[in-house]
Protein backbone atom coordinates (compact mmCIF):
# COMPACT_ATOMS: atom_id res chain seq x y z
CA UNK A 1 0.00 0.00 0.00
CA UNK A 2 2.59 2.61 0.93
CA UNK A 3 5.23 2.85 -1.68
CA UNK A 4 8.24 1.59 0.16
CA UNK A 5 10.74 3.99 -1.35
CA UNK A 6 13.92 4.59 0.56
CA UNK A 7 13.32 3.11 3.98
CA UNK A 8 10.11 1.27 4.88
CA UNK A 9 10.58 1.92 8.61
CA UNK A 10 10.62 5.69 8.04
CA UNK A 11 7.46 5.43 5.90
CA UNK A 12 5.82 3.29 8.60
CA UNK A 13 6.42 5.86 11.29
CA UNK A 14 5.61 8.79 8.99
CA UNK A 15 2.27 7.16 8.13
CA UNK A 16 1.43 6.81 11.80
CA UNK A 17 2.48 10.39 12.52
CA UNK A 18 0.56 11.76 9.49
CA UNK A 19 -2.57 9.84 10.48
CA UNK A 20 -2.53 11.03 14.09
CA UNK A 21 -1.55 14.64 13.27
CA UNK A 22 -4.12 15.11 10.45
CA UNK A 23 -6.85 13.54 12.62
CA UNK A 24 -5.94 15.91 15.44
CA UNK A 25 -5.94 18.86 12.99
CA UNK A 26 -9.31 17.84 11.52
CA UNK A 27 -10.81 17.40 14.98
CA UNK A 28 -9.65 20.86 15.97
CA UNK A 29 -11.44 22.34 12.94
CA UNK A 30 -14.72 20.57 13.66
CA UNK A 31 -14.37 21.35 17.36
CA UNK A 32 -13.92 25.03 16.50
CA UNK A 33 -17.32 24.91 14.86
CA UNK A 34 -18.87 24.10 18.21
CA UNK A 35 -18.13 27.73 19.17
CA UNK A 36 -19.91 29.16 16.10
CA UNK A 37 -23.61 29.87 15.63
CA UNK A 38 -25.45 27.70 13.08
CA UNK A 39 -26.48 29.59 9.95
CA UNK A 40 -29.54 27.58 8.89
CA UNK A 41 -32.92 29.26 9.14
CA UNK A 42 -36.10 27.65 10.40
CA UNK A 43 -38.10 28.28 7.24
CA UNK A 44 -41.12 28.50 7.02
CA UNK A 45 -42.31 29.19 10.51
CA UNK A 46 -39.52 30.28 12.86
CA UNK A 47 -37.97 33.22 10.97
CA UNK A 48 -37.99 36.89 11.97
CA UNK A 49 -39.48 38.27 8.74
CA UNK A 50 -40.92 36.31 5.82
CA UNK A 51 -38.43 35.34 3.12
CA UNK A 52 -40.34 37.29 0.47
CA UNK A 53 -39.34 40.58 2.14
CA UNK A 54 -35.72 39.55 2.31
CA UNK A 55 -35.26 38.69 -1.36
CA UNK A 56 -33.22 41.14 -3.48
CA UNK A 57 -34.99 43.67 -5.62
CA UNK A 58 -34.22 41.88 -8.90
CA UNK A 59 -35.44 38.47 -7.72
CA UNK A 60 -37.31 36.72 -10.57
CA UNK A 61 -40.39 35.33 -8.84
CA UNK A 62 -43.87 34.64 -10.21
CA UNK A 63 -44.90 37.00 -13.02
CA UNK A 64 -47.47 39.71 -12.43
CA UNK A 65 -49.29 41.65 -15.20
CA UNK A 66 -50.72 45.06 -14.27
CA UNK A 67 -53.25 45.19 -17.10
CA UNK A 68 -53.96 48.93 -16.59
CA UNK A 69 -50.50 49.73 -18.01
CA UNK A 70 -50.63 47.05 -20.70
CA UNK A 71 -50.53 48.49 -24.24
CA UNK A 72 -51.50 45.13 -25.80
CA UNK A 73 -48.29 44.90 -27.88
CA UNK A 74 -47.91 41.14 -27.17
CA UNK A 75 -44.11 41.47 -27.21
CA UNK A 76 -44.00 39.32 -24.10
CA UNK A 77 -46.00 36.49 -25.65
CA UNK A 78 -43.67 36.50 -28.70
CA UNK A 79 -40.44 36.61 -26.69
CA UNK A 80 -41.38 33.85 -24.24
CA UNK A 81 -39.33 30.79 -25.34
CA UNK A 82 -41.95 28.39 -23.96
CA UNK A 83 -45.05 30.31 -25.01
CA UNK A 84 -46.67 30.25 -21.58
CA UNK A 85 -48.14 33.75 -21.93
CA UNK A 86 -51.53 33.91 -23.67
CA UNK A 87 -52.27 37.55 -24.54
CA UNK A 88 -55.36 37.77 -26.75
CA UNK A 89 -55.91 41.32 -28.05
CA UNK A 90 -58.68 41.90 -30.62
CA UNK A 91 -60.08 45.10 -32.03
CA UNK A 92 -63.76 45.61 -31.23
CA UNK A 93 -65.39 45.72 -34.72
CA UNK A 94 -67.66 48.61 -33.78
CA UNK A 95 -65.55 51.19 -31.99
CA UNK A 96 -62.18 50.04 -33.43
CA UNK A 97 -60.94 50.08 -29.82
CA UNK A 98 -58.42 47.30 -29.20
CA UNK A 99 -59.62 45.17 -26.29
CA UNK A 100 -57.59 42.73 -24.22
CA UNK A 101 -59.80 39.67 -24.11
CA UNK A 102 -57.45 37.47 -22.18
CA UNK A 103 -54.06 37.80 -20.48
CA UNK A 104 -53.14 34.58 -18.70
CA UNK A 105 -49.80 33.11 -17.73
CA UNK A 106 -49.22 29.41 -17.10
CA UNK A 107 -46.87 29.70 -14.11
CA UNK A 108 -46.66 25.90 -14.07
CA UNK A 109 -44.62 25.99 -17.27
CA UNK A 110 -42.89 29.36 -16.80
CA UNK A 111 -39.13 29.02 -16.18
CA UNK A 112 -38.76 32.51 -14.70
CA UNK A 113 -36.12 33.48 -17.26
CA UNK A 114 -37.12 37.15 -17.39
CA UNK A 115 -37.04 37.55 -21.21
CA UNK A 116 -40.69 38.71 -21.18
CA UNK A 117 -40.13 41.44 -18.60
CA UNK A 118 -37.18 42.71 -20.69
CA UNK A 119 -39.44 42.89 -23.74
CA UNK A 120 -42.33 44.69 -21.97
CA UNK A 121 -42.08 48.41 -22.93
CA UNK A 122 -44.50 49.75 -20.32
CA UNK A 123 -43.45 47.83 -17.19
CA UNK A 124 -46.90 46.20 -16.99
CA UNK A 125 -45.34 42.73 -16.83
CA UNK A 126 -42.85 42.29 -14.01
CA UNK A 127 -41.48 39.70 -11.62
CA UNK A 128 -42.73 39.72 -8.06
CA UNK A 129 -40.91 38.30 -5.07
CA UNK A 130 -43.54 35.62 -4.46
CA UNK A 131 -42.51 32.08 -5.21
CA UNK A 132 -44.93 29.86 -3.32
CA UNK A 133 -47.64 28.59 -5.68
CA UNK A 134 -47.94 24.88 -5.00
CA UNK A 135 -51.31 23.54 -6.04
CA UNK A 136 -53.36 20.36 -6.27
CA UNK A 137 -53.69 20.43 -10.06
CA UNK A 138 -51.31 21.67 -12.73
CA UNK A 139 -54.26 23.22 -14.55
CA UNK A 140 -54.84 25.53 -11.58
CA UNK A 141 -51.48 27.12 -12.27
CA UNK A 142 -52.88 29.14 -15.17
CA UNK A 143 -53.45 32.64 -13.75
CA UNK A 144 -55.82 35.01 -15.61
CA UNK A 145 -55.18 38.72 -15.13
CA UNK A 146 -58.15 39.83 -17.24
CA UNK A 147 -61.71 38.75 -16.30
CA UNK A 148 -63.71 40.64 -18.92
CA UNK A 149 -62.42 42.36 -22.10
CA UNK A 150 -60.97 45.75 -21.25
CA UNK A 151 -59.57 48.54 -23.42
CA UNK A 152 -55.86 48.74 -24.14
CA UNK A 153 -53.90 51.47 -22.31
CA UNK A 154 -52.81 54.34 -24.61
CA UNK A 155 -49.91 56.44 -23.23
CA UNK A 156 -51.00 60.02 -23.97
CA UNK A 157 -48.48 62.81 -23.67
CA UNK A 158 -51.10 64.90 -21.83
CA UNK A 159 -51.68 62.93 -18.68
CA UNK A 160 -48.68 61.78 -16.63
CA UNK A 161 -47.92 58.02 -16.72
CA UNK A 162 -50.11 56.21 -14.10
CA UNK A 163 -48.11 55.16 -11.04
CA UNK A 164 -47.71 51.33 -11.06
CA UNK A 165 -49.36 49.38 -8.23
CA UNK A 166 -46.98 48.03 -5.51
CA UNK A 167 -45.26 44.89 -6.80
CA UNK A 168 -47.01 41.66 -5.82
CA UNK A 169 -50.31 43.24 -4.80
CA UNK A 170 -52.18 42.21 -7.96
CA UNK A 171 -50.64 38.77 -8.00
CA UNK A 172 -51.49 38.11 -4.36
CA UNK A 173 -55.19 38.51 -5.18
CA UNK A 174 -54.96 36.24 -8.20
CA UNK A 175 -53.01 33.58 -6.31
CA UNK A 176 -55.60 33.61 -3.55
CA UNK A 177 -58.27 32.72 -6.12
CA UNK A 178 -56.48 29.55 -7.19
CA UNK A 179 -54.90 28.69 -3.83
CA UNK A 180 -55.30 25.01 -3.08
CA UNK A 181 -56.72 25.71 0.39
CA UNK A 182 -59.20 28.43 -0.71
CA UNK A 183 -62.78 28.22 0.55
CA UNK A 184 -64.73 26.11 -1.94
CA UNK A 185 -67.13 28.52 -3.62
CA UNK A 186 -65.28 31.86 -3.79
CA UNK A 187 -67.36 34.31 -5.86
CA UNK A 188 -65.96 34.92 -9.37
CA UNK A 189 -63.61 31.95 -9.07
CA UNK A 190 -62.66 31.11 -12.70
CA UNK A 191 -62.39 27.44 -11.83
CA UNK A 192 -66.12 27.24 -11.43
CA UNK A 193 -66.72 27.37 -15.20
CA UNK A 194 -68.24 23.88 -15.87
CA UNK A 195 -67.03 24.01 -19.47
CA UNK A 196 -63.39 24.23 -18.53
CA UNK A 197 -63.47 21.38 -16.08
CA UNK A 198 -65.13 19.07 -18.60
CA UNK A 199 -62.61 19.99 -21.26
CA UNK A 200 -59.76 19.89 -18.79
CA UNK A 201 -60.57 16.33 -17.77
CA UNK A 202 -61.42 15.22 -21.27
CA UNK A 203 -58.43 17.01 -22.70
CA UNK A 204 -55.99 15.33 -20.38
CA UNK A 205 -57.08 11.72 -20.19
CA UNK A 206 -58.01 11.09 -23.82
CA UNK A 207 -57.68 7.32 -24.31
CA UNK A 208 -54.65 6.44 -26.40
CA UNK A 209 -54.96 5.00 -29.84
CA UNK A 210 -55.42 1.23 -29.71
CA UNK A 211 -52.83 0.43 -32.40
CA UNK A 212 -49.51 -0.90 -31.17
CA UNK A 213 -47.46 2.24 -31.44
CA UNK A 214 -44.15 0.50 -32.13
CA UNK A 215 -45.49 -1.04 -35.28
CA UNK A 216 -46.86 2.26 -36.55
CA UNK A 217 -44.54 3.60 -39.27
CA UNK A 218 -43.03 6.59 -37.63
CA UNK A 219 -41.61 8.55 -40.53
CA UNK A 220 -44.16 8.77 -43.32
CA UNK A 221 -42.06 11.46 -45.09
CA UNK A 222 -38.51 10.02 -45.25
CA UNK A 223 -38.24 6.33 -44.50
CA UNK A 224 -36.05 5.42 -41.48
CA UNK A 225 -32.56 5.39 -43.04
CA UNK A 226 -31.21 1.95 -43.97
CA UNK A 227 -28.19 2.56 -41.69
CA UNK A 228 -30.38 3.03 -38.65
CA UNK A 229 -32.56 0.08 -39.65
CA UNK A 230 -29.42 -2.04 -40.07
CA UNK A 231 -28.15 -0.87 -36.71
CA UNK A 232 -31.46 -1.76 -35.08
CA UNK A 233 -31.36 -5.16 -36.72
CA UNK A 234 -27.87 -5.73 -35.29
CA UNK A 235 -29.14 -5.17 -31.75
CA UNK A 236 -29.62 -8.41 -29.73
CA UNK A 237 -33.32 -9.03 -30.12
CA UNK A 238 -34.97 -9.12 -26.69
CA UNK A 239 -36.78 -12.46 -26.48
CA UNK A 240 -39.67 -11.75 -28.87
CA UNK A 241 -42.24 -10.09 -26.56
CA UNK A 242 -45.35 -12.25 -26.84
CA UNK A 243 -47.95 -10.47 -28.94
CA UNK A 244 -50.32 -9.76 -26.07
CA UNK A 245 -47.81 -8.68 -23.41
CA UNK A 246 -47.43 -4.94 -24.10
CA UNK A 247 -43.75 -3.97 -24.47
CA UNK A 248 -43.97 -2.32 -21.04
CA UNK A 249 -43.22 -5.63 -19.28
CA UNK A 250 -40.12 -6.06 -21.39
CA UNK A 251 -38.94 -2.66 -20.20
CA UNK A 252 -39.51 -3.31 -16.50
CA UNK A 253 -37.51 -6.46 -16.08
CA UNK A 254 -34.58 -5.18 -18.15
Amino acid at each position, binding site marked *: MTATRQCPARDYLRNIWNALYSTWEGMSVTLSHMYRRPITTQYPDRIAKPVEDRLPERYRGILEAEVDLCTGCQACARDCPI*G*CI*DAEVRADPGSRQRLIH*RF*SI*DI*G*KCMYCGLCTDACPSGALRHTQLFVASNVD*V*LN*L*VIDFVDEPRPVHKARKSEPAPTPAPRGSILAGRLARIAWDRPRDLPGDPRQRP*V*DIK*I*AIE*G*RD*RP*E*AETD*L*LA*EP*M*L*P*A*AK*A*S*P*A*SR*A*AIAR*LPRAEPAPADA*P*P*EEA*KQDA
Partner: protein
Amino acid sequence: MEAADIARLIDERLGAGTASVYEDLEPQVAIAPERLVEACLYLRDAQELRFDYMRCLTGLDLPPDAMAVVIHLVSTVLKHRLILRVETSRERPSVPSVEGVWPGAGWFEREVFDLLGVDFPGNRDLRRILLPDEWIGHPLRKDYRESRAFFNIPTRRAESIRVVHGSVPPAEEG
Protein backbone atom coordinates in the same frame (compact mmCIF):
# COMPACT_ATOMS: atom_id res chain seq x y z
CA MET B 1 -1.56 27.75 -39.51
CA GLU B 2 -4.44 28.54 -41.89
CA ALA B 3 -6.90 25.94 -43.19
CA ALA B 4 -5.71 26.58 -46.74
CA ASP B 5 -2.07 25.62 -46.20
CA ILE B 6 -3.05 22.65 -44.06
CA ALA B 7 -5.16 21.46 -46.98
CA ARG B 8 -2.13 21.95 -49.21
CA LEU B 9 0.04 19.89 -46.82
CA ILE B 10 -2.52 17.07 -46.82
CA ASP B 11 -2.63 17.11 -50.62
CA GLU B 12 1.16 16.83 -50.78
CA ARG B 13 1.16 14.01 -48.29
CA LEU B 14 -1.84 11.95 -49.46
CA GLY B 15 -2.02 12.85 -53.16
CA ALA B 16 -3.78 15.71 -54.88
CA GLY B 17 -7.49 16.25 -54.45
CA THR B 18 -7.95 14.64 -51.05
CA ALA B 19 -8.44 17.91 -49.16
CA SER B 20 -10.24 21.07 -50.24
CA VAL B 21 -11.14 24.21 -48.32
CA TYR B 22 -14.80 24.78 -47.50
CA GLU B 23 -15.29 28.53 -47.20
CA ASP B 24 -17.20 29.63 -44.09
CA LEU B 25 -16.89 32.11 -41.26
CA GLU B 26 -14.17 29.77 -39.98
CA PRO B 27 -12.73 27.96 -43.05
CA GLN B 28 -12.95 24.16 -42.87
CA VAL B 29 -10.90 21.49 -44.62
CA ALA B 30 -13.20 19.09 -46.47
CA ILE B 31 -11.98 15.51 -46.89
CA ALA B 32 -13.61 12.56 -48.62
CA PRO B 33 -14.82 9.87 -46.20
CA GLU B 34 -12.53 7.17 -47.63
CA ARG B 35 -9.34 9.18 -46.97
CA LEU B 36 -10.48 10.45 -43.54
CA VAL B 37 -8.61 8.02 -41.27
CA GLU B 38 -5.28 8.38 -43.11
CA ALA B 39 -5.63 12.17 -43.07
CA CYS B 40 -6.40 12.18 -39.35
CA LEU B 41 -3.43 9.94 -38.60
CA TYR B 42 -1.22 12.29 -40.59
CA LEU B 43 -2.70 15.36 -38.87
CA ARG B 44 -2.04 13.83 -35.50
CA ASP B 45 1.45 12.50 -36.08
CA ALA B 46 3.03 15.06 -38.44
CA GLN B 47 5.62 17.13 -36.55
CA GLU B 48 4.49 20.47 -37.98
CA LEU B 49 0.76 19.82 -37.25
CA ARG B 50 0.52 17.66 -34.05
CA PHE B 51 -3.33 17.83 -33.78
CA ASP B 52 -3.41 15.58 -30.72
CA TYR B 53 -6.65 16.86 -29.13
CA MET B 54 -10.03 16.24 -30.76
CA ARG B 55 -12.25 18.75 -29.04
CA CYS B 56 -15.61 18.23 -30.77
CA LEU B 57 -17.31 15.99 -33.38
CA THR B 58 -20.64 17.22 -34.72
CA GLY B 59 -23.21 15.74 -37.08
CA LEU B 60 -25.07 18.03 -39.47
CA ASP B 61 -28.22 17.05 -41.32
CA LEU B 62 -28.27 18.79 -44.71
CA PRO B 63 -31.48 17.65 -46.41
CA PRO B 64 -32.36 16.72 -49.06
CA ASP B 65 -29.37 14.62 -49.91
CA ALA B 66 -26.31 15.29 -47.75
CA MET B 67 -25.06 14.83 -44.21
CA ALA B 68 -21.83 16.23 -42.81
CA VAL B 69 -19.60 15.38 -39.86
CA VAL B 70 -17.57 18.34 -38.62
CA ILE B 71 -14.54 17.57 -36.46
CA HIS B 72 -12.81 20.35 -34.44
CA LEU B 73 -9.18 19.67 -33.72
CA VAL B 74 -6.68 21.49 -31.55
CA SER B 75 -2.95 21.04 -31.00
CA THR B 76 -2.09 21.46 -27.36
CA VAL B 77 1.59 21.49 -28.42
CA LEU B 78 1.61 24.07 -31.24
CA LYS B 79 -1.57 25.76 -29.97
CA HIS B 80 -3.38 26.03 -33.32
CA ARG B 81 -6.84 24.84 -34.44
CA LEU B 82 -8.36 23.09 -37.45
CA ILE B 83 -11.91 22.18 -38.51
CA LEU B 84 -12.38 19.04 -40.65
CA ARG B 85 -15.54 18.43 -42.67
CA VAL B 86 -16.68 15.10 -44.12
CA GLU B 87 -19.70 15.01 -46.41
CA THR B 88 -21.71 11.82 -46.91
CA SER B 89 -24.98 10.88 -48.57
CA ARG B 90 -28.26 11.20 -46.62
CA GLU B 91 -29.64 7.85 -47.83
CA ARG B 92 -26.84 5.74 -46.44
CA PRO B 93 -24.78 8.09 -44.22
CA SER B 94 -21.52 6.42 -43.29
CA VAL B 95 -18.25 7.97 -42.11
CA PRO B 96 -15.26 5.82 -41.08
CA SER B 97 -14.69 6.01 -37.33
CA VAL B 98 -11.72 8.04 -36.04
CA GLU B 99 -11.84 6.28 -32.69
CA GLY B 100 -8.57 4.61 -33.63
CA VAL B 101 -6.90 8.01 -33.96
CA TRP B 102 -8.49 9.74 -30.93
CA PRO B 103 -10.13 7.31 -28.45
CA GLY B 104 -12.23 10.19 -27.13
CA ALA B 105 -14.13 10.32 -30.42
CA GLY B 106 -15.91 7.01 -29.65
CA TRP B 107 -18.71 8.55 -27.61
CA PHE B 108 -19.08 11.56 -29.92
CA GLU B 109 -19.64 9.15 -32.81
CA ARG B 110 -22.11 7.13 -30.77
CA GLU B 111 -24.08 10.33 -30.15
CA VAL B 112 -24.10 11.28 -33.84
CA PHE B 113 -25.20 7.74 -34.69
CA ASP B 114 -27.92 7.93 -32.04
CA LEU B 115 -29.33 11.35 -32.90
CA LEU B 116 -28.64 11.48 -36.65
CA GLY B 117 -28.29 7.88 -37.80
CA VAL B 118 -24.81 8.21 -39.33
CA ASP B 119 -23.10 4.82 -39.33
CA PHE B 120 -19.46 4.76 -38.15
CA PRO B 121 -17.83 1.50 -39.29
CA GLY B 122 -14.81 0.81 -37.12
CA ASN B 123 -16.35 2.19 -33.92
CA ARG B 124 -15.81 -0.44 -31.19
CA ASP B 125 -19.18 0.01 -29.53
CA LEU B 126 -21.71 1.62 -31.88
CA ARG B 127 -24.90 1.66 -29.78
CA ARG B 128 -27.45 4.32 -28.98
CA ILE B 129 -25.99 6.46 -26.23
CA LEU B 130 -28.72 8.87 -25.15
CA LEU B 131 -31.98 7.35 -26.37
CA PRO B 132 -33.37 3.96 -25.30
CA ASP B 133 -32.54 1.13 -27.69
CA GLU B 134 -36.17 0.71 -28.70
CA TRP B 135 -36.49 4.36 -29.83
CA ILE B 136 -37.57 4.72 -33.42
CA GLY B 137 -36.00 7.38 -35.62
CA HIS B 138 -33.20 9.91 -35.18
CA PRO B 139 -34.43 13.14 -33.51
CA LEU B 140 -31.91 15.64 -34.88
CA ARG B 141 -32.92 14.96 -38.47
CA LYS B 142 -34.88 17.82 -39.94
CA ASP B 143 -37.70 15.52 -41.05
CA TYR B 144 -38.03 13.76 -37.68
CA ARG B 145 -41.56 13.57 -36.30
CA GLU B 146 -42.05 12.24 -32.79
CA SER B 147 -44.27 9.16 -32.34
CA ARG B 148 -47.38 9.85 -30.31
CA ALA B 149 -46.32 7.65 -27.40
CA PHE B 150 -43.36 5.59 -26.28
CA PHE B 151 -44.38 2.35 -24.58
CA ASN B 152 -47.80 3.91 -24.13
CA ILE B 153 -46.37 6.95 -22.38
CA PRO B 154 -47.82 9.92 -24.29
CA THR B 155 -45.04 12.10 -25.64
CA ARG B 156 -47.25 15.19 -26.02
CA ARG B 157 -50.12 16.64 -24.05
CA ALA B 158 -52.38 19.58 -24.76
CA GLU B 159 -51.17 23.04 -23.74
CA SER B 160 -52.43 23.78 -20.22
CA ILE B 161 -53.52 27.29 -21.25
CA ARG B 162 -55.57 26.02 -24.21
CA VAL B 163 -57.09 23.22 -22.10
CA VAL B 164 -58.22 25.61 -19.36
CA HIS B 165 -59.70 28.09 -21.80
CA GLY B 166 -61.57 25.37 -23.66
CA SER B 167 -59.79 25.98 -26.94
CA VAL B 168 -58.29 22.51 -27.33
CA PRO B 169 -57.95 21.63 -31.08
CA PRO B 170 -60.13 18.53 -31.90
CA ALA B 171 -57.86 15.67 -32.88
CA GLU B 172 -54.22 15.93 -31.83
CA GLU B 173 -52.46 14.93 -35.09
CA GLY B 174 -49.06 14.95 -33.21
